[in-house]
């Protein structure tokens, strides 16, 4: 349980302003830590002292980060155990204690004996070859990763560590939160707020729905007392002081760690142009405060509308975080291609640059797949994104993977020129700007071009002699 402390943390002005705007539009004062919300159910007779519970979600984050480490070991059964097993004894491989950044839990069971497979998006993944569902893509990647040295297939430039990790963050966490908990589970007839989530639970249906959605985002419960830089440092295990909110000398993976998309949101926000992390966590907080105030009564239509409005803030910003990541890694892939081309021209050793290219492309692909499993029909944007990126990076000899044969082997075909594929990366960046209005724009390959056009535009006088 948290001993609340009131340290003066430098909260950016933007957060204060956003909070002020949101608070002014709501009748509730916003809590600043997502913890200790009271039990509202009148008939509850158990020993719990709070209605908040989302350990299962944090267990899934720990499974995903541990799995990321396992991919490079090449042991398929270990991968499967973390993906679909149920053992409480599975060790938390990452995040693990690092110096004074002591992790409280060492096994998955200390959080919750969950798995990832049951919650993986079951629909078709059109951005990956072979017409597979989400779980099939994961199983396929496990097999391929085990065949490749260290989870890295240089011939096809596939980095399975990145591919699996980024895809799962989308197909499990993002999909479950935005396409399930913040979607159909907000309806009146699903998990109502005047009944326990399940018999004997300390929380109402809607309270728990909201908590689970919060857990999937991966933010520390005290995010609103921290800056984006703090949260970033927590995820990187560099700042135990920022993480250890209750001063017990340990970092509780349930409440004090930063995972998944919350980490990515902090990475973009720390640049100062965006406030995704605090906007998302703030909306979660507002929704949860509203549920406390509803006091275990069924939500009225207007209350549910309000809750859905908070959910929409979360969904929109979360989608932008993923789009920012697509933008960033398209830019890094492009930069790798410039380097590789220069090395090839000077007959140098391309292996290190090729490794980076594969890594960045793997992140690009993983996030691009994630972007498409939010339950929203992205229509032409989805088609365009998948075609621009293709099923693999452009390989030497200007080929790309275009399919998978009946033996599960990759099929390669002639594709773009090197420069042509670089232009694809630029188009991916443009697409993220046009369709998702990304702002942080990390590794922007046309940064400054708009300003140059503007400066010349003003000079484009119609004067003639």
């Amino acid at each position, binding site marked *: 349980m948290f001993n609340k402390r009131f340290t003066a943390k430098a909260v950016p002005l933007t957060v204060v302003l956003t909070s002020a705007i949101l608070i002014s539009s709501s009748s509730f004062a916003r809590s600043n830590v997502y913890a200790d919300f009271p039990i509202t159910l009148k008939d509850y007779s158990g020993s719990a002292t709070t209605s908040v519970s989302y350990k299962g979600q944090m267990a899934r984050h720990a499974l995903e980060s541990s799995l990321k480490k396992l991919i490079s070991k090449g042991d398929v059964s270990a991968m499967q155990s973390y993906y679909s097993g149920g053992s409480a004894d599975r060790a938390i491989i990452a995040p693990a204690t690092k110096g004074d950044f002591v992790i409280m839990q060492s096994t998955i069971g200390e959080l919750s004996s969950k798995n990832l497979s049951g919650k993986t998006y079951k629909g078709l993944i059109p951005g990956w070859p072979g017409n597979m569902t989400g779980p099939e893509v994961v199983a396929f990647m496990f097999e391929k990763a085990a065949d490749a040295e260290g989870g890295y297939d240089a011939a096809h430039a596939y980095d399975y560590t990145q591919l699996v990790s980024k895809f799962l963050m989308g197909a499990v966490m993002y999909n479950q939160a935005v396409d399930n908990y913040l979607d159909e589970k907000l309806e009146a007839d699903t998990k109502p707020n005047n009944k326990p989530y399940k018999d004997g639970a300390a929380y109402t249906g809607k309270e728990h729905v909201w908590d689970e959605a919060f857990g999937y985002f991966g933010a520390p419960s005290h995010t609103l007392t921290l800056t984006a830089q703090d949260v970033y440092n927590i995820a990187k295990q560099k700042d135990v002081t920022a993480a250890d909110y209750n001063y017990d000398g340990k970092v509780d993976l349930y409440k004090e760690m930063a995972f998944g998309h919350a980490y990515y949101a902090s990475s973009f926000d720390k640049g100062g142009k965006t406030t995704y992390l605090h906007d998302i966590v703030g909306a979660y907080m507002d929704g949860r405060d509203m549920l406390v105030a509803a006091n275990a009564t069924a939500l009225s239509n207007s209350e549910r509308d309000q809750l859905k409005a908070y959910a929409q803030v979360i969904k929109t910003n979360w989608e932008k975080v993923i789009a920012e990541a697509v933008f960033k890694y398209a830019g890094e892939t492009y930069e790798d291609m410039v380097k590789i081309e220069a090395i090839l021209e000077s007959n140098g050793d391309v292996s290190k640059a090729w490794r980076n290219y594969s890594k960045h492309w793997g992140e690009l692909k993983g996030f691009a797949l994630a972007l498409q499993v939010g339950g929203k029909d992205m229509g032409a944007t989805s088609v365009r994104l998948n075609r621009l990126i293709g099923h693999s990076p452009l390989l030497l000899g200007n080929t790309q993977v275009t399919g998978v044969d009946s033996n599960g082997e990759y099929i390669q075909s002639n594709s773009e020129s090197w420069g042509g594929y670089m232009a694809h990366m630029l188009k991916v960046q443009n697409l993220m700007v046009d369709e998702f209005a990304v702002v942080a724009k990390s590794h922007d390959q046309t940064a400054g071009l708009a300003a140059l*056009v503007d400066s010349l535009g003003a000079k*484009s*006088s119609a004067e003639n002699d």
Partner: protein
Amino acid sequence: MTDFFANFLNPEKRLFVGYLISAAFIAIIWIRMVQKKPLANIVSGFFNSNIWFSKSAIADYKLMVFNQFFIKLLAPILVGQLALTLFVFENMHLLFSRPSTSIPVWMVMLIFTSVLFILDDFSRYLLHRLMHRIPLLWRFHKAHHSATNLTPLTVLRTHPIEAVLFSLRAVIVHSLCLGVCFFFFAGSVSLIEIFGSSMFVVIFHSLGSNLRHSHVNLSYWNWLEKIIVSPAQHQIHHSINPKHYDSNFGAILAIWDNLGDSCIVSEKNQEIKFGLKGQSEKAHNLKNLIIGS
């Protein structure tokens, strides 16, 4: 009206007050030192109401004001400039390798500023030549040539369609130049600017570009007039004399005219009558300037 005043307050514009003052000084020095005329003549020449309030000059003013409203319609053209620049930049990847080594920023700035200047000047020459040579375009451009008195404000005596064409020209040239230079030099690309304007443009305007549309026939040495268009040469361009037709289309550089056999150098003490042969007084009516007679 802010756009209107911007013509005089913005160093990117030829009518910027600083350039008008520098042109006046250059004119005084030229008339006094070279033409050896008395100062009184110079002063009375500057404030000659027969020029400033002539039908021709008043027509300049009317068209200037009319175009201020029309020019607002050009905004969407400029929006397309970013899209076109990106298009050029992206397609450069299909033709060349993106260089990974960088060259010094000052060199990039010099290259970009020079390339932009040369392309800009050449495209002005080309379009201007077409405005004269293609009958349909001449119908618009003759609004400018119907001026019988030249004042610096005559530069804005332009048919609105011509203004659109010149803006499109700028969009194409800027997009090409930016797209290509950005491909080779990336973030180092920028203009060498003086007062927020291209170095070359500021130099050109500071050295009396406003005298091109004036009755001060400032000329250069003939060898220099084959490289840079002098005010006197531009006055030849406005001449009513058939032997001067279709000459000196250049904006700043005379090289293009020289290559295109359309360069006429100035003559000492040339006396030039401006306007169109056989035009009536009605040519200065706003209606005639815009929709023709």
